[in-house]
């Protein structure tokens, strides 16, 4: 495999993790536009741990995931009060606050950025991505995932059949934040340089885009979406100055053809007839 494809693959792996972080939260019916914030927390925290403290990358990633997960839970509680666009904007605001924080956090370089990490391989990134994807897919066959789907569909009804929406929604926020932090840590150690601008809301929107394009009802959808979002602009290079206009048009076209995303549960049922029994 050429270095070029290896590079793209790394980007896909990181975007996949970012998309999964949105996917988990979206599965409970909450749209988070602030996951770039959690990603930033993960990126800065792991970088600090490996560069300044001298922890190995894997350990740093785990610590960052835990810390970010806790922050996610802390954010998830007040988020319970908010719905729809209000929640989306509040999370976006959170993400921008995180970015603004790192911009002023001169101990880690402020807006000048932070250096010194060691490069991690594409294989390492994908090990994380695949393990997390596999774990999520495993969880999708578990009772808790049914509960998550129930809460997304109809929170009130879910409560009335005995499910605890608070626990599920806040938990999802925590898990999403942890996964986003891992994406951030890997991002930092892939590019070996980070600056606050890497974690602005555009990135959060990319995550959401990957999930929706790929299909928001099955975890591999995030993978399909991540592949498309990274590969598509590359394959449109022949259009030169019109590359992004074509990308936008294709995005709309894709939604028009498959508004449920590339992959969905119906498709899975078709391919794997008795997958859930």
């Amino acid at each position, binding site marked *: 495999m050429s270095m070029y494809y290896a590079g793209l693959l790394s980007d896909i792996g990181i975007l996949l993790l970012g998309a999964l972080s949105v996917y988990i939260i979206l599965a409970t019916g909450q749209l988070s536009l602030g996951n770039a914030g959690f990603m930033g927390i993960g990126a800065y925290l792991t970088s600090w741990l490996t560069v300044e403290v001298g922890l190995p990358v894997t350990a740093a990633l785990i610590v960052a995931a835990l810390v970010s997960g806790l922050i996610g839970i802390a954010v998830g509680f007040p988020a319970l009060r908010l719905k729809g666009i209000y929640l989306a*904007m*509040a999370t976006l605001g959170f993400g921008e606050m995180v970015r603004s924080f790192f911009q002023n956090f001169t101990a880690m370089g402020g807006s000048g950025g932070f250096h010194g990490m060691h490069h991690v391989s594409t294989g390492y990134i994908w090990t994380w991505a695949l393990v997390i994807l596999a774990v999520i897919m495993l969880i999708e066959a578990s009772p808790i995932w049914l509960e998550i789907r129930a809460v997304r569909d109809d929170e009130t009804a879910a409560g009335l059949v005995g499910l605890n929406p608070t626990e599920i929604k806040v938990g999802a926020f925590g898990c999403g934040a942890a996964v986003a932090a891992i994406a951030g840590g890997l991002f930092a150690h892939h590019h070996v340089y980070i600056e606050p601008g890497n974690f602005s809301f555009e990135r959060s929107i990319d995550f959401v885009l990957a999930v929706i394009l790929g299909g928001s009802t099955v975890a591999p959808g995030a993978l399909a979406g991540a592949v498309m979002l990274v590969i598509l602009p590359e394959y449109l290079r022949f259009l030169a100055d019109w590359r992004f206009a074509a990308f936008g048009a294709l*995005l709309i076209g894709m939604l028009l053809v498959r508004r449920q995303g590339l992959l969905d549960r119906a498709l899975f049922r078709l391919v794997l007839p008795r997958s859930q029994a």
Partner: protein
Amino acid sequence: MLIQQLVNGLTLGAVYTLIALSFSLVMGILGVLNLAIAELFMLGGYFGFAVVMAQLPLPLALIAGMAGAALVAAIVERIGYQPFRTASVVTPMLSTLGFSIILQNVATNVWGSDPLQLTDEVLSGRFNIGPVSVSAIQLTVLGVTVLLVALLAFLVQRTSIGRALRAVAENRDVARLLGVPAGRVTLIAFMLSGALAGAAGVLIGVHYAAITPYIGVEIGLKAIAVMVVGGTTRIWGALIAGPLMGVVEVMTVAYGGSQIRDFVVYGFMILILLLRPQGLLGGGRSDQGQRV
């Protein structure tokens, strides 16, 4: 300086309010976040500039900007909203994002990425009241904002058109059963919102006298924040929230340090949302319509 900063804050707030209005017209009523509005605003600016640079009067520029943006909004509605009526709300949001990517690219290819600047200030008159200096265009922006808010609030909350819009948004079939031409009504809402964005683009473009294809992004984001703080379902909300956010922003820069501006502004937005989850004027009516 305090008073001057207040004036700065109010002008900025008016700018936010203007754009927030076009967002809330489609968000508050139809429940879609039309992200392309940021770019309609940008387009309005370019159309307006073209007219102003041709030495034609400002009202003509306004008309050009509004008409141009409304036309593009109509396309966005037909391709980016209609087909996704029944999909989840994230989907039309992303299809309109597709439009905003296209429009940015097209604008770059047509007008370039460099700031397009007006050589002379339009309406360059200034009024100095003591230490405070207000420009004619600032006053125009403020005045137009208040006027448009009042007009729109009347339209949406007092007329049967507004009611019909809300009905279509909630249940299209039922609205049709009651005689509402649903397709036409949503198209009108989008075009109206586009025209508003276009007007904002002209006024604000002329006020700051420089535009780029990316001008809509940051300001669009703030405008959405303003809409949310005001409450999406109440037009008047934007008139309160816009200046509030504008003043908070400007005062943070003036007295708190400009570095922490975004931190404070978004923190303030979150705080308000936590205290009032449906925004200041969102009175919680339509969003809380849940019963078992």
